[in-house]
C-alpha cells in the first residue's frame, strides 16, 4: 500500500515589539537575568495586564498577510496551570475567539499552487525561561533545583495553526521557509529558530493514498531548524507506516526530536489529561479593532513572497525564484538585472557567492555587482571572491578587481593541467569510468596550483579535452 503523510503545523512567533504583551517592560534578549521584570510580568498580587496595542496590530497584519478573516471581537482567555515559568498560574491567550481565522497560504510549486489552510492565528504571552539543574533529563522532575529567568515571560507570541494540508516533509520545510520570510518582511519578528523566536511543532499522521480518513496523529516538538523539522517528520512518517504496515496501531504520543541522533523520543505520558479551565480574562476588555484600522493595515501590506516567487519565476525559473525570495535576495537580484546583469548569472552569483560570503544583500551596490557578474569568467577566481566579500564595504568600487585578468593562455595552463592529471591517476580512471562529476575536482586542483588566477572556464575545457583524449 502507498501511504500519504497528513501534516499540520503549529508555529509560535515571538513578536519584536519594544515592550512586553501586557506590561511596559522591555522585551528582547541579552539583558541580565530577571532585570526586565515588573509587578505585572512577575504576577505580583493586584498587578493587572494592559494589552500591547502594537502587538495587536501586528497580529492583524500577519493575519491579513495569511488571508485570514480579522475578528471584529477577539477575546483573551486564561489558560490555567501550574509551572514555575508561569508567574500568574495562568497564561493569557486568545482561545475560542482569536484575532485571525480561516486563512490560507499559497505555496508555489512546479505542479501549480499548493494551498495550505490557516485555521487560526492568535495572540498570547510567552512563558519565562527555566533551567533545571541536576538530574538526568534536563526536565523539572528529578532536577536538583530550577532557575527561572522572567525576562522572556510576557513577551508577545503569535501562534499560527495550519490545517492538516501539508503532504510531505519537504513541503513542510518549503512552507515554513515561505512563512518565515513573510513574517520577516512584515517586520514583526526576527523569526529565528536558533534563537527560539520561531518555534515549530508538527502533528503527523499517515493514511492510505487517496483516502480522506484522518488517523491518529502524533506531535513532534523541539525541532530547532527547518531541516530538523523535515528530518523529524520524515522519521515519524516512516515509523508510522511501519507500525500500520505490521498490523499495529499508532498511539497518540508526543515526541522530542534529537538533532544529534535524529531519533524521536516519546515524552512520558501524563497520568491525566490536561484541563486548562479556560475562561475569558476578566482583567482585559475584548479586542475590537475598528474597521478603518483593519482596512489601513490591509492597504499597507507589501507584495508578499508567494506572489513575488510567481512573478520572478516568469523571468527565471521556480527553483531560483524560490531561493531568491525566501532568502530575501530578490530585491538585489531585480536591481542587478535592471542595470544590465544577465538574469541566471546574477541569480547564481547572489544565491551562491554573495550569500556564501555572508554579505548583507541590502548593503550591496547593484551596479558594481552587475559589473562583477558580467566579468566573472575572465576574472581570477581569488579576485572575484575578494570583490564579492567586500561588496558591502562603504564606497566599494569594482574597478581595481576588474583590472585583473585571469590566465586564459592555454600554453601556460596546459602543463599545469597535465601535472594535476598525472598526480591523480585514480581520479582520472574514475572520471573515464563515468564519474564526470570529478571535473570540478580537477579544475579546483588547477586553480589551487595557480593561486586562483586561472580562468576557470578555460581550465575546465582543457581538462575535459585532455581526459576525453
Amino acid at each position: 500500500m502507498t501511504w500519504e503523510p497528513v501534516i499540520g503545523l503549529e508555529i509560535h512567533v515571538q513578536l519584536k515589539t519594544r515592550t512586553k504583551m501586557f506590561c511596559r517592560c522591555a522585551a528582547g534578549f541579552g539583558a541580565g537575568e530577571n532585570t526586565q521584570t515588573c509587578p505585572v510580568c512577575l504576577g505580583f498580587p493586584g498587578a493587572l495586564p494592559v494589552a500591547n496595542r502594537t502587538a495587536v496590530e501586528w497580529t492583524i497584519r500577519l493575519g491579513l498577510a495569511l488571508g485570514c478573516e480579522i475578528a471584529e471581537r477577539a477575546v483573551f482567555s486564561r489558560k490555567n496551570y501550574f509551572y514555575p515559568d508561569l508567574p500568574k498560574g495562568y497564561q493569557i491567550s486568545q482561545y475560542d475567539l482569536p484575532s485571525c481565522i480561516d486563512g490560507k497560504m499559497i505555496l508555489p510549486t512546479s505542479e501549480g499552487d499548493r494551498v495550505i489552510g490557516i485555521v487560526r492565528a492568535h495572540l498570547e504571552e510567552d512563558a519565562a525561561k527555566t533551567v533545571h539543574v541536576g538530574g538526568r533529563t534536563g526536565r523539572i522532575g528529578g532536577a536538583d533545583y530550577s532557575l527561572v529567568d522572567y525576562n522572556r515571560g510576557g513577551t508577545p507570541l503569535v501562534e499560527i495553526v495550519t490545517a492538516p494540508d501539508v503532504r510531505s516533509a519537504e513541503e513542510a520545510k518549503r512552507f515554513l521557509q515561505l512563512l518565515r520570510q513573510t513574517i520577516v518582511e512584515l517586520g514583526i519578528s526576527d523569526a529565528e529558530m536558533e534563537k527560539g523566536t520561531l518555534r515549530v511543532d508538527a502533528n503527523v499522521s499517515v493514511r492510505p493514498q487517496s483516502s480522506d480518513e484522518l488517523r491518529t496523529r502524533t506531535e513532534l516538538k523541539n525541532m530547532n531548524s527547518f531541516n530538523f523539522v523535515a528530518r523529524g517528520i520524515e522519521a515519524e512518517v516512516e515509523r508510522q507506516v511501519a507500525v500500520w504496515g505490521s498490523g499495529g496501531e499508532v498511539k497518540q504520543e508526543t515526541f522530542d526530536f534529537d538533532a544529534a541522533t535524529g531519533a524521536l523520543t516519546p515524552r512520558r505520558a501524563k497520568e491525566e489529561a490536561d484541563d486548562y479551565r479556560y475562561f475569558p480574562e476578566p482583567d482585559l476588555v475584548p479586542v475590537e479593532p475598528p474597521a478603518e484600522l483593519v482596512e489601513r493595515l490591509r492597504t499597507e501590506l507589501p507584495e508578499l513572497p508567494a506572489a513575488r516567487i510567481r512573478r520572478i519565476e516568469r523571468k527565471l525559473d521556480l527553483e531560483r525564484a524560490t531561493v531568491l525570495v525566501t532568502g530575501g535576495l530578490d530585491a538585489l537580484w531585480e536591481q542587478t538585472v535592471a542595470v544590465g546583469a544577465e538574469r541566471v548569472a546574477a541569480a547564481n552569483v547572489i544565491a551562491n557567492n554573495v550569500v556564501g560570503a555572508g554579505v548583507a544583500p541590502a548593503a550591496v551596490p547593484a551596479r558594481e555587482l552587475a559589473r562583477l557578474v558580467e566579468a566573472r569568467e575572465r576574472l581570477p577566481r581569488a579576485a572575484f571572491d575578494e570583490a564579492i566579500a567586500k561588496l558591502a564595504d562603504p564606497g566599494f568600487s569594482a574597478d581595481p578587481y576588474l583590472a585583473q585578468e585571469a590566465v586564459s593562455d592555454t600554453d601556460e595552463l596546459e602543463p599545469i593541467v597535465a601535472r594535476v592529471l598525472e598526480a591523480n591517476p585514480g581520479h582520472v580512471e574514475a572520471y573515464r569510468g563515468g564519474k564526470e562529476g570529478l571535473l570540478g575536482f580537477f579544475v579546483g586542483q588547477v586553480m589551487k596550483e595557480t593561486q586562483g588566477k586561472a580562468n576557470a572556464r578555460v581550465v575546465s575545457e582543457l581538462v575535459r579535452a585532455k581526459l576525453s583524449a
Partner: protein
Amino acid sequence: MAAVVDTLRLTAEEAAGLLERGELSPAELRGAYLEAIAERDGELHCFLRTVEEAEGDGVPIALKDVISTKGVETTAGSRILSGYVPVFDATVAGRVKKAGLSLLGKTNTDEFAMGSSTENSAWGPSRNPWDPERVPGGSGGGSAAAVTAGLAPWALGSDTGGSIKQPSALCGNVGLRPTYGSVSRYGVVAFASSLDQIGPVAKTVRDVALLYSIVSGRDPNDSTTAELPEPVRLPEGESLAGLRIGVPTELNEAEGIEPGVGEAVRRALELVTGLGAEVEECSLPRSVRYGLACYYLIAPAEASSNLARYDGVRYGPRAEATSYQELVDRTRDEGFGDEPKRRIMLGTYALSAGYYDAFYGQAQKVRTLIIEEHREALSRFDVLVSPTSPTVAFRVGERAADPLAMYASDLLTIPSCLAGLPGLSIPCGLSEGLPVGLQLIGPQFGENLLFRVGHALERALAFDTVPERWR
C-alpha cells in the same frame, strides 16, 4: 497628650477644615487617631498594622489590607502573604497619597476578602464597636469598625458581593460600592476580577463622596476602568422632589430579613415620601432568586484562577519541599485557610472541562439576565431601596461553622454587584440596639444621585453613628 479632638464624632470634612484653618496640626490630628487606636483597638482588632511615619499632611486614612502599599506589608488577611511587602502602590493608594492623605495603617479583612464577618482572617476576627461580642461584618469589617470607633475618619474597602456595604450596615456608617469600572483595581489583591470594586467608608455621605472623588476615574493600568461621565458633586440639598424611588419586593420581603431590619427601612421610606420623592413597589424576581447561586459560581471560578499565583516561588512563605509540585502543594496547603480552599475547589470544579457550560457558562448567562432586569427597573426608577443586610450584626462564631448561613448575609447586596451597579449603604436606625443599614442602588455611574438621596435621608434620619456605649 490629651485628645485634642473627639475622633468618634469628627468627620473627614471637619478634620480637613481644622487643618486648613490651622486649628490643628497634621501631627496633632494623626496623633489623635493613633491614640484612639492605642486605646480601643486592643478590643476591636481593626488594624493588622499601623504606620508610624507616613507621608502626607492631610486627613489620615486607613486602607483595607487587600490594597497594596509600597513598603508596608500587605497580607490580604492571609498567612500565604505574611511578610509580603509590595514594591508598588495600588492606584488607589497612590491617589490618596497624592491627595495628601496620610496612611494610618492596614485594616483587617476576611482572607482574600472572602467572608462576611472577618472571622476568616488568618490574623483573628475584628469586633463590632457597638457590641464586641458581635462581628463587624465582612470582608471589610476592619475598615468599617475603625471608622465607627473613631480609629480613622475614613477608610477604603473592597467589595465583591457586599464587602463594603454589609460591614458599613453592621457598624452603622456609610459605605459605597462604586460602579464597576469607576475605580481602579490595579494593585488590589484580586478576589473575583469581574466583581471587585474599591470604595470608601466614612461617617457621612459627603465624606464618602469626597473620598470617591479622590480615588475614582480612569487608570491606564486597569483596562476595565472608565472616565467618570460627570464630576463628583458633594451633596447639599435636602429635597428629594421629583425623584422616583423603587422598592423591589423581593429585596424587601426576602426570607431571613429580621423584623426590626424591615421596620427600620420602612420608617426611612416614609421619610423619603416626606422629602418629596415618589415611592413605589417594583420587582427584581430573577435577580434575587438566582443571584446568590450565580455569584457563588462566578466569584469562586475567578478566585480559583486569581489565587493560583500564590505558589511560594516569588514571594510569601515557601514550604520545605523536595520537588516543585510538593513545594506548590505544601505552600498552598499551609498558606491558605479553609474559606479560600473551599472557593478554589468550587471554582476549579465550575471551570472544569465538561462542567463549564453547565456552571460558569450558565452563570454568565444568568448574570446577563440580572443586568437586564436591573436596567429595566432603573429605567422606571431613579434609585432602588432595600435593607443592606437581612440581619443586624450577629455573634462572633454564630455562623462560622455554616458557610451557607454566612453566604446568605450577602443575599441583598449581591444582585446589584453582579449587575455592576453602584450601591450606597447608610445607617437608618437601630434594631435590638444594633445599627440597620439601608441600601440605595443606582444606575451605572449614578453615584451623584446616590449621594443626593443618601445625604437627604441622612439629614432626615439624624442617625447618631457613635455606639451607645461610648456616648
